[in-house]
Structures are given as C-alpha cells and as structure tokens.
C-alpha cells in the first residue's frame, strides 16, 4: 500500500467487465479505455450501472467477470486500499470524529508519507479553505465539505480520481461554481478524473469525454459536442438535451446524402451523420437549430410545412414553441429573442426549416421516446 502513488500510472482499461447482483445485471460486458490525464464522465439515469462501474474501479465491488487495468497493472482483485485510486463520495463521507486537517491527512498517514503537514496545507490552499483546518466536518457548509472531500482524495495524488455525483447535494448556484472549480483543479493537478453523474449539463460542462450509459451498457462515447451534435441512438439524442425525432423512409441516396420522405415532405440528411442501415429512419433535429417562419415566407434547406403553433413559452434568452405537425406530432422549436422571428401565438400556422447538415439520422427501429422520460433522481 505504500507504493500506491509511485507505480502503476497509465490509462484505465476495463475489459468486458460485468457485474450482477442476483438476477439483476447492473453492468453488462463493458469495455472502456480512459486515457491518462483526461476528465471523463459516465453519464446516465439512475440505475444505469454508472455508480456500480465506479465502485468496481474503486474496488468497493468485485466484477462478476472481466478485468480492470491501470497501465500494465491488473487491479481487478486488489483491495480498495491497495489501489492507486481515490474517491470523492456522494455526500462526501468525511470522518465526523476527525478535524478537517486529520481528514485530509488520513490517506497520507496510512501510506506513511513524511511531509504530511506540508502536503495537507498545500491542498487546503488549493481548495481555498486553509482557515478551516481545525474545524470538524459538521461545522462546515455543504460546499465546504465537498471541497474537503475533494482535498482528502487529491492530496494522495492517485492515478485516478473517482467522483460519485460529487455535486448532487449542492444547490444549483453552488453546483455551477463548483463545476468550474473542479475543472480548474483537474487542469491544475493533472490527474485523471472519472466523474459519475446523471446531470447531462454537468457532464458536458466539465468532461473532455462522456460515456452515456443505459441499462448497464455504454450507448455512445465521445466529446460533449460530438454526442450533442451527432447522437447515434435515440436514447442519447433525448438524454443529452432535447431532440425532435421524426419517422421517415429513405427515398433516394447519392454519394454523400440521402433524401428521406417524411409524411409526404422531403428532408435531406448527410450520410456521415446517418446511422440508419435500412430504409426505415428516424430524422433528428435539435430544437434550437430550427427556424420558425410564417407560411409563404422564403425559407431554405430542409423545410417542413403545415405546422400549427400549440404552445409558446418565453424563457428570457429564447422563446420555446411547441408546433403540432399535420401527422399529430409535437415538435419543439427554440428561437433566440434577437428580433428575427415574428411574434407568434397559439393557433398560428407556421413552417419549420433548418440547414440540412444539422439533420442526423437514427435507425428506424429505435424508440422515439427512449431516454426522454427518465426522471431526474435528484
């Protein structure tokens, strides 16, 4: 355990990892590589297996099958205290009987580090709470406890820092502030962060790479922009932000684009952004990409006509419209309040249009609503 920080740095590799609790498979044949030094987010609704994955990396659960490596070191069966991995627990799990100083020093003392005082003071300065060293955890606010939990983990300079919904217990404003701080600290200390969250905005704000998990599997992995702009499953399209998904049939294709017939209207989709293999396809378009115009006004690109505004809500920076299409599907449209859109009221007939490259195509067998009814557990 003394060599925890000296050896085994490198990428984290999970190979065909599964975890079953009785009949329930929490994590199903997961293979994943997290590059050293990255800020990686495991994103998914509650019960998707993300926390179980994290606990297996920490050693708090043993995988039913598969292996976990850090660099060239197999850590699959190592005890938590033998792994160069530290965790920031949900609700922090600070030691209530120890002072803040002793909480932070805990890991250093167990490893027999010499300059405990110096290191603790340094990390307390990093989280900007050096004046609280003598307090007890219960005397701290939630945000302060969160920072101490982080300090207690990073002071050990682990190969890997695991964060289990670290901001879940904080209020919205503090959460925003801590997101920025966490990201800054990660850059500062240069450790690999693996962050588990159900909050897509949090994941997108902080992570370099996000893996979206659902039912024990990874749905899609990539940069936040990649996942948002080119979701490959309906679950990802709906779980990260909002999407309009419309059923259609591919009617013709050329080298780089397909034309899709959607309820009698024609929509173009780039082949590079289309994951549908057969003719049946789901057309996807993000609400903020759509322009809303009165019928007869000039519009270019992909156009859907015959909509009726059924709901208008003003949210400050934008106005959100619900438009009912002739085939009885409601589509969401977000318009910037920049004066470029006519004032519309429920009942007004409208046309919707957007730049064809914004369109993405999903396989027609996907469930249109997958990932959209997931309740926020927090």
């Amino acid at each position, binding site marked *: 355990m003394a060599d925890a920080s000296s050896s085994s740095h490198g990428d984290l590799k999970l190979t065909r990892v599964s975890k079953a609790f009785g009949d329930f498979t929490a994590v199903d044949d997961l293979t994943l590589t997290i590059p050293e030094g990255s800020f990686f987010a495991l994103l998914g609704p509650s019960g998707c297996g993300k926390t179980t994955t994290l606990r297996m990396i920490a050693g708090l659960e043993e995988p039913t099958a598969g292996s976990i490596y850090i660099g060239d070191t197999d850590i699959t069966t190592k005890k*938590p205290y033998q792994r160069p991995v530290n965790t920031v627990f949900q609700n922090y*799990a600070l*030691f*209530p009987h120890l002072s803040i100083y002793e909480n932070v020093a805990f890991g250093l003392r167990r490893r027999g580090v010499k300059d405990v005082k110096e290191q603790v003071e340094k990390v307390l300065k990093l989280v900007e709470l050096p004046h609280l060293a003598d307090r007890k955890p219960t005397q701290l606010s939630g945000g302060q406890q969160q920072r101490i939990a982080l300090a207690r983990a990073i002071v050990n300079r682990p190969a890997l820092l695991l964060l289990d919904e670290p901001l879940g217990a904080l209020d919205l404003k503090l959460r925003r502030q801590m997101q920025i701080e966490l990201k800054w600290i990660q850059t500062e200390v240069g450790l690999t962060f693996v962050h588990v969250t159900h909050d897509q905005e949090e994941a997108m704000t902080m992570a370099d790479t996000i893996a979206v998990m659902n039912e024990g599997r990874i749905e899609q992995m990539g940069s936040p922009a990649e996942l948002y702009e080119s979701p490959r499953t309906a679950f990802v399209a709906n779980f990260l932000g909002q999407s309009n998904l419309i059923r259609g049939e591919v009617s013709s294709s050329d080298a780089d684009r397909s034309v899709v017939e959607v309820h009698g209207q024609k929509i173009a989709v780039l082949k590079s952004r289309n994951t549908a293999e057969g003719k049946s396809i789901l057309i996807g378009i993000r609400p903020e990409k759509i322009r809303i115009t009165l019928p007869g006004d000039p519009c270019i690109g992909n156009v859907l006509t015959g909509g009726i505004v059924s709901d208008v809500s003003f949210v400050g920076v934008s106005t959100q419209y619900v438009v009912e299409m002739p085939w009885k599907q409601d589509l969401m449209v977000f318009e910037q309040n920049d004066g470029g859109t006519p004032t519309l009221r429920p009942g007004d007939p409208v046309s919707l249009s957007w730049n064809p490259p914004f369109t993405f195509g999903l396989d027609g067998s996907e469930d249109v609503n997958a990932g959209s009814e997931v309740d926020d557990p927090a």
Partner: protein
Amino acid sequence: MAFLQSAVTRAGSFTGKKGRLPYLLLLPGMLWLFTFFVLPIINLAGTSTQTPVVGGDVGQYVQTFRLANYIDAFNVARPQFARSFIYAFLATILALAISYPLAYAIAFRAGKLKNLLLVLVVAPFFTSFLLRTVAWKQILGEQGFVVPTLRSLHIIGQNTSLTASALAVVTGMTYNFLPFMTLPLYASLERIDPRTLEASNDLYANGITTFRKVTFPLSMPGVVAGTLLTFIPAAGDYVNAAILGNPNTTMIGNVIDSRFFNIVDYPTAAALSFMLMAAILILVTIYIRKSGTDELV
C-alpha cells in the same frame, strides 16, 4: 382599533402561555424527583450523621451531625469497597469484550436477522433479575453442564467448583448487565455511515486500521454509555454477591443491605451509601472527561 386591541391581547396571552408551557411540562417530573429523590437524599444525609441514643434501644438514633461516622464506616467496609470496584470493573471489561463483537455483528452483518437478534438481546428482561441470578447459580452448579464439561476437558480440577466464588459473582454480573452494554453499542455502531468505512478503505486503510481509526472512535459514545450503564449498577449490586458469592466476596451493597436490615445500624449504612455515590460520581466524571466523547454525542 378595538379589533387591533383584542388581536394584541390575544397574541400576548398566547405567548404568555407558550412561555409557561415548558415549566408546566417539567412539573410532574420535578415533583416526582423532589418527593422520591431529593427529600430521601436529604433524609439519608441526616441519618448518616446520627449517633445511637445513650441508653436507648437498638435502632434508636439521634441527630448529632457526627461526620466521623464516615471514617468509621469506611474503615468497617474497606475491603468490600475495593471488591465492589474491582468486580464491577472486571464485569464491565468482560461485558464489553462480549458485547462489542455481538453489537458489531448485529449492526453490520445480521441482515434480515437484525431485529430477531435484538429481541434475543433484550429477551432476558422478560424474567426477573433475581430469577436469572438464581438460574445462573444452577448453571454454574454441580448439576449444571458447565462444571462437568470443564472438568472433563481438564480446564478445572476435579474438586473445583464454580459456585460461591468471585468468578461466579463476576460472571453473574457480566451476564445480568450484558444488554445494558450491547444496546448502546449497537445504537452507536448502527449510526455509523458505511460510506465512511468505505472512504477509509479507499484511503489506504485495511480492515484492522479502519476499525482502529474509524469504526472504534465513532462507536465511542456507545462504549462510554455501555460501560457506564454496566459499571454503575454493578458497583452498587448486592444480589449477585449474595446469591453467587461466599462470605469472602461480599460487596459494598451487601454491607449496606445488612447494616440497614440486619444490624439496624442506619448511620453506617447511610454513610456507606453516600460514599458509594460519591466514589461512582468521581470515577464517572473522570472517565467521561478522559474519553472526550462529549463532542461526538
């Protein structure tokens, strides 16, 4: 205006009621304590400084405020005092050694059996204290299963018996006060957030270190409460010594008992009672100060 006036008086009377309420709630308890604790204590203090009426009958005493009674009483019962605290200390240590693993298992490992095990811990209370102690005499007696078993295993000699001994008194007290140790221990162990134990594991502490540095310190309130709840009644106990002991294992409780009811020496008995209370109070205060659990509770 009139409306406002009445609203104000109503509000006033309301807060007035609220101000008196805590005292009203305290009243029954205070009355009870005064009648059955404070008054008898004053009475006992008086008795402890009385002297026999010159030329009077046995049991006739007069108030003379003779403080030397305390010194006399102490000299009479010095060995019993020592024995009381030694036995109580041993019983407390034994009870702690037995209860801690038990409470730990119930709190962390029992799963569905948790409630059943807790009921079993409390189950002895369904029988009277006296009966249990008499039963303990049977268990340790020649006809019980313990003595023949220990003899056949050559752990005790063929002529050694277990009853009427210091060992019987201490084991009897250990048994009788075990639930008082187990329940507070269980309560404080059960309150420990298992994630703090995981955090300790995560921070390079193995099982033993986690127990030493996290579990045990966090269970200190239970340890303190349990040891007090065992030690205090054990130090004043006389039933175990009377039923399970012999004339050489008498405790201070037995002396007080016999001075009050057999010899009718009220002043000595009262003085001994006071000294026992004072000794326990001092020990307990030092103990709580030393263990420093006040901020954990």
